[in-house]
């Protein structure tokens, strides 16, 4: 426990000081935080509950649009803002910007949670691949439909309010980094707390055998919906932050980007190791470093690389980094291996 505390303290100190140590990578670090949040929340769904979703992108995009809309709509007419392309006609004062952002993030987190609760009963009754395809459809449908709604910019996109002129050139990056880092810490604390509760065991029971879990008297639907709502809360929050960070929202390329972000969150969790606490964090970090390297040096070929990467990870590396470590150093994970028993089992195979 003591060792853990030192580890967490070190990570926290590193996290807070990171933008000042690597000032050139502030935006990248903020995106990394958002990616880790997405991977962690996907892991609650796909890893712990066994419901492999492509649809968390729905909450992410919803949060993004909601945060920006609230931030603008609190002070200015939304329709005129999107029509004029945003910042040219209206200017947020710093106070307005931060108030709007705070309010927007609250809405961005709460509304997707409610949406998840409302559609959860219908969608979570599906299982396995039907659930996967259904959520894939939800994500794409949301993107297509939001691309046809005029008030949030339709096909031409939505410019989020520009950062107000306070505290010098660096303040924008620092603000968004700290915001995303706070979101990451919050998510990690909640997810870690879940790991020591009965709730996590119930989710695992649902993953391993839902019928048996139901037969044991667990109201599986209730817990599935709660699990999805937790995912939706943090996905919406991450989306809201990302919207402000990117500064421009497009329906299919930024917000409901099933081809990029929607797959990334699945991939990161699988790369790190499904169903582990640290897996998604490690997976997201490795993935982000790999991705940025590739995106920079092989511009244009990134989707080819992404496609190959997905195939390779899924086929040859489905246990992920944590799974591999666990195989290699089982003692570190608190597993005791009876050598004689293991040999007997190998022989049986």
């Amino acid at each position, binding site marked *: 426990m003591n060792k853990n505390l030192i580890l967490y303290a070190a990570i926290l100190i590193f996290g807070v000081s990171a933008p000042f140590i690597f000032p050139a990578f502030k935006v990248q670090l903020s995106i990394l935080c958002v990616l880790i949040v997405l991977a962690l929340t996907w892991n609650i769904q796909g890893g712990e509950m066994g419901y*492999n979703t492509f649809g968390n992108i729905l909450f992410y995009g919803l949060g993004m649009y909601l945060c920006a809309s609230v931030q603008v709509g609190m002070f200015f007419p939304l329709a005129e803002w999107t029509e004029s392309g945003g910042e040219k006609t209206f200017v947020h004062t710093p106070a307005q910007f931060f108030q709007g952002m705070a309010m927007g993030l609250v809405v961005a987190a709460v509304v997707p949670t409610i949406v998840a609760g409302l559609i959860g009963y219908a969608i979570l*009754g599906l299982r396995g*691949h039907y659930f996967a*395809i259904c959520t894939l459809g939800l994500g794409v449908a949301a993107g*297509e439909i939001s691309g046809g709604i005029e008030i949030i910019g339709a096909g031409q996109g939505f410019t989020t309010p520009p950062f107000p002129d306070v505290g010098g050139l660096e303040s924008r990056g620092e603000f968004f980094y700290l915001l995303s880092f706070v979101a990451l810490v919050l998510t990690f604390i909640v997810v870690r707390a879940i790991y020591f509760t009965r709730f996590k065991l119930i989710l695992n029971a649902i993953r391993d055998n839902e019928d048996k879990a139901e037969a044991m008297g667990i109201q599986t639907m209730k817990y599935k919906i709660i699990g999805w709502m937790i995912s939706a809360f943090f996905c919406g929050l991450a989306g809201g932050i990302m919207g402000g960070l990117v500064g421009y929202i497009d329906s299919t390329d930024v917000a409901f980007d099933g081809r990029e972000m929607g*797959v990334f969150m699945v991939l990161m969790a699988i790369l790190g190791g499904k169903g582990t606490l640290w897996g998604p964090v490690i997976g997201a970090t490795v993935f982000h470093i790999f991705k940025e390297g590739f995106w920079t040096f092989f511009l244009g070929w990134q989707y080819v690389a*992404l496609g190959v990467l997905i195939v390779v990870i899924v086929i040859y590396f489905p246990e992920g980094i944590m799974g591999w470590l666990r195989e290699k150093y089982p003692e570190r994970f608190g597993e005791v291996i009876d050598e004689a028993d293991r040999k007997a089992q190998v022989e049986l195979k």
Partner: protein
Amino acid sequence: MVFQYPMISVQACLDGILLGILFALIAYGMALQWGVMNIINIAQGDLVILGGYIAYFMYLYGIHPAWGVIISPIIMYFVGVGLYKLVINKVVDRDLFISILATFGISILFMQLMNFAFGADVVLANSGYGTTFLFDSAVVLPNSKIFSAFISILFAICLVIYMKKSKLGRAIRATAQNARAAKILGVDTEKVYAATFGINAALCGVAGALISITFTIHPYMGLPYTIRSFMIVIVAGLGNLPGVALSGMGLGVFEEFADYILGTEFRIGAVFLLLVLILVYRRFKLSRKREYLK
């Protein structure tokens, strides 16, 4: 609008039926591989688009694109077998989600490779077949659509007969029923799987060539075709051929009406939303008997 101008409804119905026959052909390939190999292929739509580009290139080089209906499936068959040998054979016996994710990767890969090879423009191969006017020119049907529906039906019938009569067809059906038993009785299931995936890809090639004549193709348009064929298969069920044809036509008609009523920008959205609605409807219907979709 639909009731004020009945001719628009007739037009939409006819368009939808002709379109739906094409969808049913793609869905038949989907049902084939799902039933035999137990995989869901997200790259299905991208195979369709690739087949379309083959026909389009023949058109560019001065060959009439209708010949693509013959050339494209031959090329696509080998693409399919190659894909099987490289990737798909490793996901056949695994969890369905693995196959979904792996083929999603293939889909992204194909999209981008096609984007490099053929450019991001929307293209179509002009067949020069003219149009048919019905009911005093109130209903306009391009002959290419009629041609494509006819060819689709022809290929579907050929395939059904082939599956019933030929040795490979029997082997495929045996493997679909029980792969292990088929293996014991001397069927080389690896070969059967490869052939199934190849036939599926060839069907996609035919459909793609027809789509390049009748509609437009674009590297990123694959996913909607996958979703449509998935939807048709879950509505009709595996191995129910009349059902596949009927639900394909139904989907086509739905799409045309969605196009007229909601507007073209919501067309794809309506398709995806319909998928969600169908799945949810089936889920509620089954949950009354305390069952779920398997």
